[in-house]
């Protein structure tokens, strides 16, 4: 009975304040979309970093059957060549620059590739043979990359020596900048949303002061009096959060559709990852609205 009563009160409150409620929904929608976008940019950066990014700096890719570079004219790397390269990495001349290294076999490379590109159609068309085995090197001083590159790129069995960081770092700087801007806009919009919720709840409390006055006099509990107002704000904010989540989901669909066909070498975050962001957005929207409503009621609704 009491639940039905509270729900009825919420319904009438939402109807009476429709224009304000719609504006709350829209403002939370926009602000949370920016919050979500910032979060998903960070997820995208992690996705692009792949397995090795945070662990090593330099990779020495070895020839495989399909390598086309000049160094691989004699075909795939032989076991002998590989052991040779391993010995070179252990030799004092090279060892002084590196702190440690690991060998990634084709099988392991394929495993990591599948993980990184799990959302991409490319994963189905790539086989283990097409991926190069590699030595992954952790530098004592990343600036000394040139020395490694010069020493190894001309060795037999080496396809290429690359510093993946240098390529990705520039993109990441841009993406981090974008996520900071998105976060900044989000903060401003969240302030707007909170102020708007405060005003809406205040209006709502004012327009229903007759009811709440009577509720107080006949001894309704604080919960019964305040809950409809708080839920009004929370419901509006949660609708906004759901719209934001939906928008972000559409963005991931676009990333994995059109965009992933254009940039086959870039792994994109999946639509499923929206499921990680959405609960955060809903909790954030609902929580902020709840707190804003509660504080407003404490000032404007005597119980």
């Amino acid at each position: 009975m009491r639940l039905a009563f509270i729900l009825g009160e919420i319904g009438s409150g939402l109807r009476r304040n429709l224009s304000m409620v719609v504006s709350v929904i829209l403002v939370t929608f926009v602000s949370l979309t920016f919050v979500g976008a910032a979060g998903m940019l960070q997820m995208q950066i992690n996705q692009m970093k792949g397995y090795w990014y945070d662990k090593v700096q330099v990779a020495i890719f070895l020839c495989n059957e399909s390598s086309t570079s000049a160094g691989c004219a004699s075909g795939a790397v032989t076991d002998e060549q590989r052991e040779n390269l391993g010995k070179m990495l252990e030799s004092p001349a090279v060892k002084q620059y590196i702190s440690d290294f690991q060998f990634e076999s084709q099988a392991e490379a394929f495993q990591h590739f599948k993980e990184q590109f799990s959302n991409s159609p490319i994963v189905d068309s790539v086989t283990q043979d097409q991926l190069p085995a590699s030595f992954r090197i952790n530098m004592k001083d990343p600036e000394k990359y040139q020395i490694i590159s010069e020493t190894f790129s001309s060795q037999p069995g080496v396809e290429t020596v690359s510093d993946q960081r240098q390529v990705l770092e520039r993109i990441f700087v841009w993406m981090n900048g974008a996520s900071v801007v998105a976060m900044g806009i989000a903060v401003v919009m969240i302030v707007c949303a909170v102020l708007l919720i405060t005003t809406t709840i205040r209006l709502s409390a004012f327009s229903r002061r007759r009811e709440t006055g009577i509720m107080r006099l006949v001894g309704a509990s604080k919960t019964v009096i305040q809950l409809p107002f708080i839920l009004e704000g929370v419901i509006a904010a949660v609708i906004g959060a759901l719209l934001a989540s939906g928008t972000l989901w559409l963005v991931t669909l676009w990333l994995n559709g059109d965009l992933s066909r254009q940039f086959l070498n870039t792994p994109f975050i999946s639509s499923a990852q929206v499921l990680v962001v959405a609960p955060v957005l809903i909790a954030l929207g609902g929580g902020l609205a709840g707190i804003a409503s509660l504080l407003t009621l404490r000032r404007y609704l005597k119980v």
Partner: protein
Amino acid sequence: MRRVRRGCRRVMIRFENVTKVYDPNARPALDDVSLEIDRGEFTFLVGASGSGKSTFLRLILKEDRATSGSVYVAGQNVANISSWRVPRLRRGIGVVFQDFRLLPQKSVFANVAFAMQVIGKSRSIIRETVPEVLKTVGLEGKEKRMPHELSGGEQQRVAIARAVVNRPGILLADEPTGNLDPITSMGIMGVLDKINQNGTTVVMATHDDDIVNEMRRRVVELRNGVVVRDEAKALYTSMIPVVGESRLLKDASDEELDRATGAQQ
């Protein structure tokens, strides 16, 4: 005039040296008021505007806190009631106002049912109780009317029904006949009397001398926050001439002054 204090159980409302100060620079709204109202008693609270009647009622409801002294309702010191238990106190007290305070978009039935819904009474109990109470206040068959379709007296009856539907032990009425003509007012007094007969303690603040004189109940007169008269079966204006009356009356409103002198002549 103090009444002899009877057994504690019989006392419904007790004021012990209660002082209420709203503005430290002005005189207190209530000044060292001590008073007892028994269970089942009908008490008129009379006095000019600003004499402290409304403050008296607000203190019973714990809408305000006494500056000093204690207020006991049903044996409980209201100062010791924690804020989350105040609703329980108020469930035991019904309140009626001069301006009815009905919800305009709700029917008569819904207005009365509202008081039960918000404290979580079940639908079946509401369906059972509301018609009974409407019958008590003389509004049988008017359940579906909207407040604007009712006369002032009928609206006040709805308000009374709402105040007593949860069977409170106390009914506070703040000038319930203030907006009504004399005949309608007498009808309302009949309803309040009937509720009082059923055992509810009624405290009614009023300016209406006709009603007070007609009913012949206990009268407590406040002036400038002080109890100046407390008589059983009394009239609106005291029969006993008070020395220095004219000086005291200077503080009262003109209307009060006219009434007081008119009754003495």
